[in-house]
């Protein structure tokens, strides 16, 4: 009888913690691991010989930006991949709606359509981004990265900067 009560109470506590955790991570902040090297050297600067996730960077993602969807050029964002809705990617926004982007390997220039943005990884060689799948709708963005929280020696704010060679004209 006492054990059943104890189990029921623990279950209720877990349920409550789960609800609160889910609400906070949907509306305010969440912490996500960064996998891959497409954002080197900003995240995961060294190619690690371990494939373990303990060495991956972990970043703080804020969700307050999703109220107005107001982003600036140079923001690092987390978004749902347009070719596979189960995957999430982290890249930097390099152009906003109405900006012109020069496509690589050709002389064309395209304008970013209304409600979309152009995302690129800081490490152009390794990165699968808008140069392959085109501009993404802003509705796919799930949060903005503000700080690195792991590993301890690299804790700090994530800069909002545009790499020189990516400046749209």
């Amino acid at each position, binding site marked *: 009888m006492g054990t059943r009560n104890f189990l029921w109470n623990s279950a209720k506590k877990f349920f*409550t913690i789960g*609800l*609160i955790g*889910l*609400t906070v991570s*949907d*509306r305010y902040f969440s912490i996500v691991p960064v996998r891959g090297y497409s954002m080197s050297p900003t995240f995961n600067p060294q190619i690690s010989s371990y494939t373990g996730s303990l060495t991956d960077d972990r970043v703080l993602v804020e969700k307050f930006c999703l109220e*107005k*969807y107001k982003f600036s050029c140079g923001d690092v964002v987390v978004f*749902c*991949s*347009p*070719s*596979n*809705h*189960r995957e999430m990617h982290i890249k930097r926004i390099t152009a906003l709606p109405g900006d012109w982007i020069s496509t690589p390997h050709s002389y064309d220039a395209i304008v970013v*359509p*209304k*409600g*979309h943005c152009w995302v690129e990884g800081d490490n152009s060689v390794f990165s699968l981004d808008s140069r392959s799948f085109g501009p*993404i*709708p*802003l*509705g*796919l*963005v799930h949060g903005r990265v503000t700080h690195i929280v792991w590993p301890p020696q690299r804790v700090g704010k994530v800069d909002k900067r545009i790499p020189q060679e990516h400046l749209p004209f």
Partner: protein
Amino acid sequence: MSRLFQFARQWKPIIKEGFSQSFLIAKFLCLLHVTNTHVCTPVLVYGPSMLPTLNLTGDVVLVEHLSQKFGKVGPGEVVVVRSPENPRKTVTKRIVAVEGESVTFLVEPALSDRSHTVVVPRGHVWIQGDNIYSSRDSRQFGPVPYGLILGKAFWRVWPPDGFGSL
């Protein structure tokens, strides 16, 4: 000094009660948020683009999110989608084709018979309003990534004479 202690002792149970009630309200709001975002939520839809299925002046429909999370939303279903032209707006349309299928549609149904055929790319869906004469949908802004779908509208609750499944 002792008056301060007396004061605190008087108010302590009331403050504790206040905290526990606020916590209860916070727990209820969290439950409401999780249900609305991940399970099912009522949505007010209005506009001419889904006539005659949905009314012009506004219907309240129940939208469930579980099918979208498991990837089980398919052609013929009415979905609520975050607009690719303005992420702050949501639009309600019907899925006509999913990835890999080819869609043939009339480019300007009111003006000509010209039609166009497109293959829907991987990870995208093609949405159209039931009222093709007055609908801004994939024929104008192209195929929509699956990740923009918020949920499937499956039941109408208002107006009462339209109560029932969609």
